[in-house]
C-alpha cells in the first residue's frame, strides 16, 4: 500500500511535467493505465516509467529520490510454453489460470512495451547480422563453442525463430520451470547490479536508483552476453572458449562456456584418455585471485597435471583464439561484426583480470 502523499508525488511527476507533447501525454496515460491494471492483478510497480535510455528502452524511477519497487507474484509469471505468436503478437495460449483480464493486459503489454515496442526489431537486426556473417566466420564461432548459427535459425519460420530468441533472452528458471516476468522483463542488464530478488511467492526488484533501473540478469562473459542477448556489456567474469591442447603429453579438452556456479571449482572428467575441464572460470574483476585458485582445486583429482601451467596454457590459447577471431571479424562488412569485435575486445580485456591465487 502506498501513502497518499507518495501517490500524489507520483501523479504530480507524471502529470505536471513541463512542455509535454500530446504524444508524450498519451504515452504516460497509457503507461499509468498499464501499471494500474498490473496492480489490480496483484503486481507491484511503484515509481517506475518506461522510456529510452542509453541501453534502449528501459525502466527509470519517476522520482529518483524515492525507492522503486517492482514485484511479480508467482501467479502472474508466464510459463514460456504458455506463449504463442498470433498474427505477429505475443499472447497467452491459455489465460484461465490468471486473473480475469490478464490475458488481454498481457497482450497489450507485449505489443506496446516489450515484443512490439523494440524487442522484435532489435532481435531481428541482430539475428540478420549473424546470418550474414561469412561461412568461415560462422564456422569459427561454432568451433569455439560460441554459437551454431545454422542451428539457431533453422530458417523455417523467421517469426517463430525471432519469437524463440525473444523468449530465450527473457526467460528465468523458477523451481525448474521457465517463465517470463511481466513488467520486470523491461528492466535492462548491468553486471554491476544485484540480481532479482526471488522471494517465496514473487520475484522483485527494489531499491533506490539515480538513473535507469538495472539488474544483473545472470552470470556471463562479454562475448557470450553479446551472442546470447544481442548487446555489448563489460561483464565482470571471463570463461574459456572450447579448445583442446596438449599438456605434458596429456590431451586436455576444455569445454568452454558459462559456469553458473562460478565460485566453485569447475567439473572435470576423463574420457578416452583425455581430461575434460568443463567451463573453467578464467578471470574475475571482483575476485581476481579466485580463478587460478579454483582451477588448482579442480586439478587435484588428476595426476600429471601442473595446474598453474595448464591455467596459463588455457589463457594463452584463449587469447590466441580471440585475436584470431577478432582479426577475422575485421574482414566482415557488417554492423554485427563491429558489435562482435567490440565483444571480443571486451573478452580479451576481462580475461586479463586474474592475479595470483588465494
Amino acid at each position, binding site marked *: 500500500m502506498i501513502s497518499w502523499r507518495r501517490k500524489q508525488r507520483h501523479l504530480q511527476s507524471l502529470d505536471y511535467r513541463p512542455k509535454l507533447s500530446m504524444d508524450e501525454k498519451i504515452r504516460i496515460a497509457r503507461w499509468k493505465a498499464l501499471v494500474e491494471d498490473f496492480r489490480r492483478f496483484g503486481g507491484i510497480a511503484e515509481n517506475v516509467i518506461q522510456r529510452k535510455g542509453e541501453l534502449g528502452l528501459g525502466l527509470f524511477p519517476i522520482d529518483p529520490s524515492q525507492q522503486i519497487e517492482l514485484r511479480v507474484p508467482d501467479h502472474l509469471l508466464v510459463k514460456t510454453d504458455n506463449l504463442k505468436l498470433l498474427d505477429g503478437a505475443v499472447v497467452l495460449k491459455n489465460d484461465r489460470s490468471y486473473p480475469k483480464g490478464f490475458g488481454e493486459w498481457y497482450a497489450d503489454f507485449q505489443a506496446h512495451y516489450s515484443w512490439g515496442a523494440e524487442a522484435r526489431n532489435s532481435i531481428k537486426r541482430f539475428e540478420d547480422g549473424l546470418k550474414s556473417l561469412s561461412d568461415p566466420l560462422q564456422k569459427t564461432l561454432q568451433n569455439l563453442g560460441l554459437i551454431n548459427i545454422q542451428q539457431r535459425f533453422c530458417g523455417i519460420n523467421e517469426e517463430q525463430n525471432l519469437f524463440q530468441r525473444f523468449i530465450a533472452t527473457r526467460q528465468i528458471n523458477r523451481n525448474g520451470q521457465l517463465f517470463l516476468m511481466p513488467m520486470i522483463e523491461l528492466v535492462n542488464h548491468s553486471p554491476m547490479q544485484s540480481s532479482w530478488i526471488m522471494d517465496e511467492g514473487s520475484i522483485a526488484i527494489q531499491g533506490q536508483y539515480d538513473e535507469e533501473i538495472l539488474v544483473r540478469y545472470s552470470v556471463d562473459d562479454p562475448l557470450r552476453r553479446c551472442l546470447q542477448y544481442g548487446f555489448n556489456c563489460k561483464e565482470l567474469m571471463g570463461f574459456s572458449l572450447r579448445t583442446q591442447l596438449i599438456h605434458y603429453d596429456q590431451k586436455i579438452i576444455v569445454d568452454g562456456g558459462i559456469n553458473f556456479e562460478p565460485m566453485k571449482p569447475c567439473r572435470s572428467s576423463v574420457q578416452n584418455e583425455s581430461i575434460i575441464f568443463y567451463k573453467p572460470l578464467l578471470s574475475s574483476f571482483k575476485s581476481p585471485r579466485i580463478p587460478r585458485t579454483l582451477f588448482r582445486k579442480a586439478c587435484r583429482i588428476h595426476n600429471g597435471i601442473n595446474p598453474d601451467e595448464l591455467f596459463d596454457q588455457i589463457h594463452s590459447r584463449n587469447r590466441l583464439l580471440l585475436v584470431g577471431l577478432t582479426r577475422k571479424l575485421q574482414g566482415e562488412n557488417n554492423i554485427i561484426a563491429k558489435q562482435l569485435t567490440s565483444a571480443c575486445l571486451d573478452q*580479451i580485456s576481462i580475461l586479463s583480470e586474474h592475479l595470483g591465487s588465494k
Partner: protein
Amino acid sequence: MGSASDWHAFLDEFRTFGGKAENVMQRKGAFGMGLFPIDPAKPVDLFIPDELLVSIEHIELRGGEVVIKDDNSFPAGYGDWFRRYQANYSWGAEGRENTLAFEEGLKGLPDSIGMMMKRVGLYNSDNRFPGTDPDQELLNRFIQTRCINRKDRRVIMPMIDLLNHAPSAKPYDMSGDGIAVAGLHDGEVLVKYSVSDPIRRLLGYGFNAPETLGFSLSFRLQHRDRLVVVQGGGGRQPLQPCGIELKDDRVVLKQPLLASSTSPKMPRTLLIKACRSLEGIDAHELFEQIHQRNAQALVQMLRELQGVEGDVAQRLRNGCFDQLAALSHHIGQRDDLLAEEAATPAVA
C-alpha cells in the same frame, strides 16, 4: 633501380672494395624490395668488411642524395659508389618514400591514439618527426631503421641493409671482420634484425612482423602498497632478469620480458629472479598485473582504431593484434632455474 646488368656491374664494384655479394639479386617480394638468390640451389654469400661500414654520423643529405660526408677514410671511389647505391637501391629506390608515408600516416592518426601511444612510451611525434626539418628528420628515421651497433659504433651496412627481416630468420653473422649473411635460401634472403616485439617492430621499422617475444609498455601501477614504475621496451639481453631498483620509494622495473613463444617459461622466471632483491613484492602477482595493464592498453588502442581508415591505421591494428598474441606466450616458470639460484651461496 637499374637493369640486371647494372646490378651485376654494381656488385662487381662492391667486390673491388672488399665486399662479397654472391648469388643475389634485388627485386620486389612480399615485403617490398628485397634480396633473392639467383639460384636457390646454391648458397648466397653477402659480406661487408668493417672498413666499408659507414658510421651514421658520417652520413648526410646533399642535394637530396644520401652521401658520406667525408670519404677520405674509405677506399678510393667508395664514396661515389655509396651515393649511387643509396640513390638506386636504398634511399632513392623505396626507402625515402616508405619512411615518409609511414611517418605521415602516424601523424595523421587521431590525436587520441597519438596520446595513448605517447603515454605508454611507444611513439612521440614531437620528438620523432616534428616537421621542422622534414628532410633531415626523414633521413634520421631512415637511418634508424637500417643501422646496427658494431664495435661501439652505429653503422650502416651497404648491401646487407637491403635484406628484409623475419623473426624466425638467423641474425647477422658478426663473428668475423665484418658482417655476413650466407647460406641456402629457397625464397627471399631474410635476416633477423634485432630483438623486438611486434608493436615496437612496427613503430621502429614501419612493418608488421609476428615477433616471438613480448615486452611491456610503460606505465605505473600500484602493487600492494608500492608504486611500481614499469619502463617498457625490449632489452638487448631478453633472457636475463630485467633491471629493478628502488627510487624514492618507487620500484622501477626496466624493460621486463613478458612473453616468449620459444621459451614460454622464462618470462615469469626472470621476473621472479629480478624481484628477489626487493622485499614486499609478490612477483607472481606483479607479473600478472603487468600483463593485465598491457592487455588493457592494447585493447584500448584497438578500440580507438576502430573505424580509422588508412594503411598505417591498419598496420597499427595488426601490430596491436600481433602484440596481444605475442604476449600470450607465457606458461608457468622454470623451477629448476629458480631453485638453482636460490641454492647458490651468496658471494662474500
